[in-house]
């Protein structure tokens, strides 16, 4: 199904769409307030973009440096070219330790690799410990947002899910009660866990350490209680030096939720005595994206979600309509690189307004890349007949002023005099769910000419 078809389904519940739209815009506004409080914010973004550009241009050296320094601190380093290799490596570590119960904090990479279903098939229990991720895991759904995984769920839906799976009493969706019940449930899972899996926000070449950011404290509860900690990262998570964290940690939470920093920013440099620490470094299509000059900078992404919160399409179509691990504007420039045909509708899920690029903390030119993907999609993927013919006709009309004027005149005539069932038919998408504006007698050209004549 294309993005617009899935978006149509999401839009069936108008009240929910309106709530979704407003809730995300509120997060965008909090981001603005937080950003405006920082002196030198734009310079910070430039630095972040510059550091990431340097990283990509020297990535092999940094990866080797990271590995060397991590090994010195007794962190075991693994490399995986693909999702399958990643899953097999994680499973082998767990199997060697006879781990049967695993807790996992948020990691978009493990979502991308479909690690959960892989491990479950091997008889391993894997529990997502971020509250939003636990909610969607219980609902057997993927996250719909990378920072707010359950933003598409109402509190009443969460209430029902918890009643069914955690045995809670009905509370009309009381967030405090439900969060506290989840806390108790997850505490038990943390205590029982044989191993913990986390993502990586930043891996530092200079020290061989890595940083994990959470608000809930779930990554740390898992990592410090279990005897084995496996941290999974894409190759692009590397930053050269520890001092660069100063730049990225100032940007990340402010861009994501409007907080000045996440509650916890944990710096892992070596395993606690008697425990093991592993890092799995994953390519899975990233080096291919690195080869594409026009789309390379999409790998700058630090997964803050700001582009989703600001996007007028995302806010009104919901994360699931993108049918990708990473939805929204950034997902729409990352996913076509993995499967152009499958994700061919995503570069069109945009008004090209450029808001995503404006809020991006690492200054990815997202809307320009969307436009560039469109060029490739129309060349490589068969387009619907109506879209193709309309664009062809529009091209002809727009290139001939007389024809353009005639077309405008007939459109205005039709809007004014054609019966309602014709104007608001399926053929006219612009009349779908909205009233068209009142028609004036003149077009701009005519109005301007009259005006000039009258006023000299």
């Amino acid at each position, binding site marked *: 199904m294309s993005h617009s078809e899935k978006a149509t389904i999401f839009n069936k519940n108008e009240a929910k769409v309106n709530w979704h739209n407003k809730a995300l815009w509120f997060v965008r506004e909090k981001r603005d307030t937080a950003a405006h409080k920082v002196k030198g914010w734009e310079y910070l973004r430039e630095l972040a973009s510059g550091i990431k550009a340097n990283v990509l241009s020297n990535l092999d050296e940094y990866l080797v440096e990271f590995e060397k320094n991590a090994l010195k601190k007794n962190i075991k380093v693994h490399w995986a070219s693909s999702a399958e290799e990643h899953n097999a490596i994680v499973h082998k570590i767990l199997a060697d330790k006879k781990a049967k119960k695993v807790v996992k904090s948020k990691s978009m990479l493990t979502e991308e690799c479909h690690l959960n279903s892989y491990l479950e098939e091997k008889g391993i229990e894997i529990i997502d410990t971020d509250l939003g991720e636990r909610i969607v895991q219980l609902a057997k759904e993927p996250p719909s947002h990378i920072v707010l995984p359950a933003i598409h769920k109402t509190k009443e839906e969460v209430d029902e899910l918890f009643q069914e799976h955690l045995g809670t009493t009905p509370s009309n969706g009381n967030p405090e009660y439900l969060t506290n019940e989840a806390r108790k449930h997850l505490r038990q899972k943390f205590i029982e866990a044989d191993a913990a899996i986390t993502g990586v926000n930043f891996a530092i070449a200079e020290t061989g350490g890595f940083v994990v950011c959470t608000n809930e404290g779930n990554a740390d509860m898992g990592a410090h209680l279990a005897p084995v900690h496996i941290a999974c990262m894409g190759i692009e998570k590397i930053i050269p030096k520890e001092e660069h964290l100063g730049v990225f940690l100032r940007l990340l939470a402010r861009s994501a939720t409007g907080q000045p920093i996440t509650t916890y920013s944990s710096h892992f440099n*070596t395993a606690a005595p008697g425990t093991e620490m592993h890092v799995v470094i994953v390519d899975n299509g990233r080096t291919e994206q690195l080869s594409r000059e026009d789309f390379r900078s999409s790998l700058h992404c630090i997964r803050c979600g700001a582009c989703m919160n600001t996007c007028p399409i995302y806010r009104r179509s919901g994360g699931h309509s993108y049918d990708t691990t990473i939805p929204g504007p950034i997902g729409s420039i990352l996913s076509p690189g993995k499967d152009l045909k499958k994700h061919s509708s995503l570069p069109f899920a945009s008004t090209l307004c450029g808001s995503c690029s404006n809020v991006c903390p690492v200054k990815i030119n997202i809307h320009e890349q969307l436009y560039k993907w469109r060029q490739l999609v129309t060349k490589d993927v068969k387009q619907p007949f109506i879209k193709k013919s309309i664009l062809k006709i529009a091209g002809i009309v727009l290139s001939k002023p007389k024809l353009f004027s005639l077309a405008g005149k007939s459109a205005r005539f039709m809007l004014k005099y054609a019966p309602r069932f014709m104007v608001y038919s399926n053929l006219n998408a612009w009349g779908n769910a909205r009233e068209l504006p009142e028609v004036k007698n003149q077009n701009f050209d005519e109005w301007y000419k009259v005006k000039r004549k009258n006023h000299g």
Partner: protein
Amino acid sequence: MGRAAILKSVKENKPTLVPLPKIDLNPFQENVDILETFKSNVKLVGGNIQELSQLSNIDSEVEKMYPNASEIISCIPESNLGTVSISEKTSPHELETVDLAIVKGEFGVAENGAVWISEEAVSTRVLPFISNDLVIILNKEDLCLHMHQAYKLISERKRNFGLFISGPSKTADIEQCLVIGAQGAMSLTVILT
């Protein structure tokens, strides 16, 4: 497969070297009251602030704030409230029922109300997360303006584990309603001495 293939592919596909920018701190310089900014940001992120004139008053202050805490771990010599003792050898699982932990913060960051906690200050890494409530003792002289200065302050540390804590654990994953107390500590108090 794996390592060699990834490194080979990166080498083939990476662009020509882009220089690493130098961080100029001048654009971030501000004339603000560091102490007041820190205090207001701790409150902004959901934490409590207490200012003490004397270090010796810590215990009475903590008892006032957490009267029901019975299992208490104190990691600072100035407090006698500790009822459970721990060392590096303590299993993290033993801490499941701890009500309150009192730990030393190394320094605070004004711009975001975060406090740096080193592994040495907590003995067991899980302590600041698993404890129901958390009290951080911080000298008000030990504050810096922003994260760039913070990373200078920890550049020479022993690199095992350490973290910035900014407020109590929280979540807004249910309909964007902010709930304080997710998987980590339910409350955080910073006591400035």
